[in-house]
């Protein structure tokens, strides 16, 4: 039990994620989390405005159930299967974060300097969450996949377009962290 309560090493977690992908392919479906964003649009009758959402969302119910499960899984992992959170970050990372004004690095899953209500309810804090979310939604559907669809499923099936997409994910991420973070925070 103690092994389960501690953080899991990468060489356990990575193969288990691949197993999730494989099981969904075995069920005749696919591992693609960002597709749900289109399903939510279809549920809100956005099909009247754009043909991308003009499909029967009930056909995608299975994927919404995966999302529901993921929320429950997050709850179980956090409140039943975890010791108090202490993320073992590189000391250099912690130092860089302090320079940017993040003083609680690794003491929770997400930085309170972005996700606590005190910051969320400021103009800047709200703008950060909305900008991040917008880029995720617009970008993943433009690219036709996210970390699960392109990086895990697409690379596992040796598709060149997924390699290009995954490299682009990193170009965007590196630009954000190295160039934009010092300007934003």
């Amino acid at each position, binding site marked *: 039990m103690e092994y389960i309560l501690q953080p899991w090493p990468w060489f356990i977690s990575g193969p288990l994620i691949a197993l999730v992908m494989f099981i969904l392919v075995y069920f005749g479906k696919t591992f693609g989390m960002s597709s749900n964003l289109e399903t939510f649009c279809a549920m809100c009758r956005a099909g009247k405005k754009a043909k991308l959402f003009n499909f029967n969302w009930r056909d995608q119910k*299975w994927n919404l159930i995966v999302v529901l499960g993921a929320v429950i899984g997050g709850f179980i992992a956090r409140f039943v299967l975890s010791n108090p959170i202490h993320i073992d970050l590189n000391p250099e990372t912690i130092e860089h974060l302090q320079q940017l004004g993040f003083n609680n690095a690794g003491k929770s899953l997400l930085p309170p300097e972005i996700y606590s209500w005190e910051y969320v309810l400021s103009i800047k804090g709200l703008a950060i969450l909305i900008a991040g979310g917008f880029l995720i939604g617009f970008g993943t559907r433009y690219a036709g996949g996210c970390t699960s669809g392109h990086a895990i499923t697409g690379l596992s099936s040796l598709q060149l377009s997924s390699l290009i997409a995954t490299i*682009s994910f990193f170009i965007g991420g590196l630009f954000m962290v190295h160039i934009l973070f010092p300007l934003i925070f």
Partner: protein
Amino acid sequence: MKYLKFLLVGIFFGIVLVKSEAVSWYRIYEMFRFESFHMYGIIGSAVLTGIILLLIAKKLNLKNIEGSIMQAPLKNKGLTRNIVGGTLFGLGWALSGACPGPMYILVGTGVFSILITIVAAIFGTFVYGLLKDKLPH
């Protein structure tokens, strides 16, 4: 009942992503600074295992539960969409510290402010849907 298996897969996925710390903003930041192997190990070993599993399925001619050949869906090949869309997602991934799976999982861990990110992501998808025919792919 036919949806129960998907619920269980989702629960398993959520647990693995929290326990691996892949849902942590800090781990994503550390990854983009190249200061830890952790996230590269997770993604790398996931892809390697995925390649092996799909190759085995192909060699053994395994069928899915619907009786057709097991294979991952083909992705769209457009260069522009993968580069531009991918880069935009990367910007959002690093800023939010979450991708479209973890943002739901994090709701379960009690971070309700991420619901704002989710609503914004749905809105971003909607705007893409409006502009789709005008954008180069």
